[in-house]
């Protein structure tokens, strides 16, 4: 009896252990399939994560937004950043609100610097800060970007799919090429 109970409980725990990663996957796959695509300009650097491997850390260029008068933000607050597209086709932040906006594309973000009230600029942390790569390739990817940056071409960008405020990274591009291809070309 006791053994059966333990086995029953174990099966429950095992299910939770499967469902958790499974739901992580399905949520992101659904955004990748049906979400709206945006291009964010980024600057990569290269750190290391002991568990999850090497990644290129990304600094999103477009992270400042003018706060509408009447809106007050706090440090660390979760907000909704409205996304618009500029003339060159890159995403920019067009506004920020504390409730989910209707009929707009938006992202969930965190306030890093709330600014000084209405009319001033606030700085947000967008929900993409890393792009995982093979361990040998991540530092190389960073060097490729630096080379581009020195020539005044800060042309790294990230394609991101967004749905209902939830963002999933699709691909990192440097100099118009997928970063994986750029690294492969550089090696040859």
């Amino acid at each position, binding site marked *: 009896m006791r053994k059966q109970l333990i086995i029953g409980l174990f099966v429950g*725990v095992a299910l939770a252990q499967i469902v958790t990663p499974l739901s992580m*996957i399905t949520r992101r796959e659904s955004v990748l399939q049906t979400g709206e695509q945006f291009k964010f300009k980024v600057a990569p650097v290269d750190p290391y994560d002991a568990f999850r491997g090497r990644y290129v850390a990304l600094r999103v260029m477009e992270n400042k937004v003018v706060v509408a008068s009447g809106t007050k933000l706090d440090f660390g607050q979760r907000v909704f950043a409205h996304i618009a597209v500029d003339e060159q086709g890159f995403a920019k932040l067009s506004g920020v609100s504390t409730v989910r906006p209707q009929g707009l594309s938006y992202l969930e973000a965190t306030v890093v610097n709330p600014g000084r009230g209405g009319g001033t600029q606030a700085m947000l942390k967008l929900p993409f800060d890393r792009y995982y790569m093979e361990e040998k390739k991540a530092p190389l990817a960073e060097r490729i970007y630096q080379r581009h940056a020195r020539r005044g071409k800060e042309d790294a960008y990230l394609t991101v799919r967004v749905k209902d405020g939830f963002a999933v990274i699709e691909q990192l591009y440097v100099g118009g090429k997928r970063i994986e291809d750029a690294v492969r070309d550089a090696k040859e």
Partner: protein
Amino acid sequence: MGKRAIKWLYQELPVLVSKGVLAQEAADRLREYYGEIKDAGKKMTAVIICGVLGALLIGLGIILLLAHNWEEFSRFTRAILSFLPLLIGQGLAFWVLCKRPQSHAFKEASATFLSLMVGASIALISQTYNIHGTAGTFILTWMLLIVPLVYLMQASLPAVIYFIGITAWAGNYWNDPLMAVLFWPLAAVVMPHFIWALRKEIYTIRTTIMALVMAICVSIGAGFSLGKTWSGSWIIIYSSIYAVLFGLGNRAFKGLTSNWQRPLRIIGVLGILFLAFLFTVRFVWQYIGADYYRLSREVSGSTAFLDHLITFAIIALAMFFLYDNARRKKLTLALFGALPLLAIITYSLRGQEIIFPLFIFNAYLLILSLVRIKEGIRNNSLAAINSGMLILGILLIVRFFDSDINFILKGLAFIAVGVGFLVTNVVLVRRGGGR
């Protein structure tokens, strides 16, 4: 008689018989009296250690393999890959629960492996989808998914992994005490298992490791989570924590002789002595009110309730041990446990002259060392005497370094302390005691 002694006796018996010291019948009767030596326990421990080490290494190896980030694989392949190790781990654990529910080695090893595989699975998914953010959410998800294994499989290593995990998680929120303070309720989740393990098998290596890891993690976790409304309160909090560990170690492990088997006590004593020495240093009291860090969220009033509650509980527990040891006239134990009381007194008088706390803690260490030495002489115990001498020696040396005494006197003092050590030991050994 100890197992080792019986083993030695059995080795000697044939020699004694052959040399005519002992009659064969007497030897046989001795064998009968002491019975067979049970080596099974030792063998079992070896099996558990090997099994768990194997599971740990294989599990960590798989995590590293996945961390390589095989970008040739499609997202679908990677999804399969992230479930494969998890399912293998679950299958193993399930088989053990069904077929080998009595085997500690199997349960410990398979639960450890599964614990690591849950982490590997979430890590690979985080990698595939470039999931942002700090390690906080990742670690907490992982830990919550493995903690039931501690109870379902009566396994201690997952509890150790869990404890290290929640400490790392709290560290992630070092500047956000409202989150970090949740370390304590999270830690409480594995306490019943720890108490169960202590009751059931006080001698085994796994309770020792668990106690050691927990004592260290609690020391670190406290730093992230407590005393954030009250600058300088670490003086009281840490004194109380080590006094509590010391008190628990003396209780839970009563009747044990080897220090290695009393990790709570060892860490408690070391912590108490380290703090007492620290409190004899001037700058600790000079800068007691200064905070060197900035918190992301202010805590005060009702938000600090949990912080205050846990702090108060720890201090109260320390005071209980002090009172209890004093009541039972255990002078040395009470003296070690008195550190938090002294910390409270000196902290509340911190606005006064700095010389006051310095004097108190120098006197405290001096009395502690003398009591240890006296106790050692009375019980003829070299270990007690030497530990007392060591405290005294360090105290003298430290004081000599920070005072303006010339080198000749300092040198002579060092020599005096050294000679004192040697003479005491020689005298005791000569006396034939020196256990």
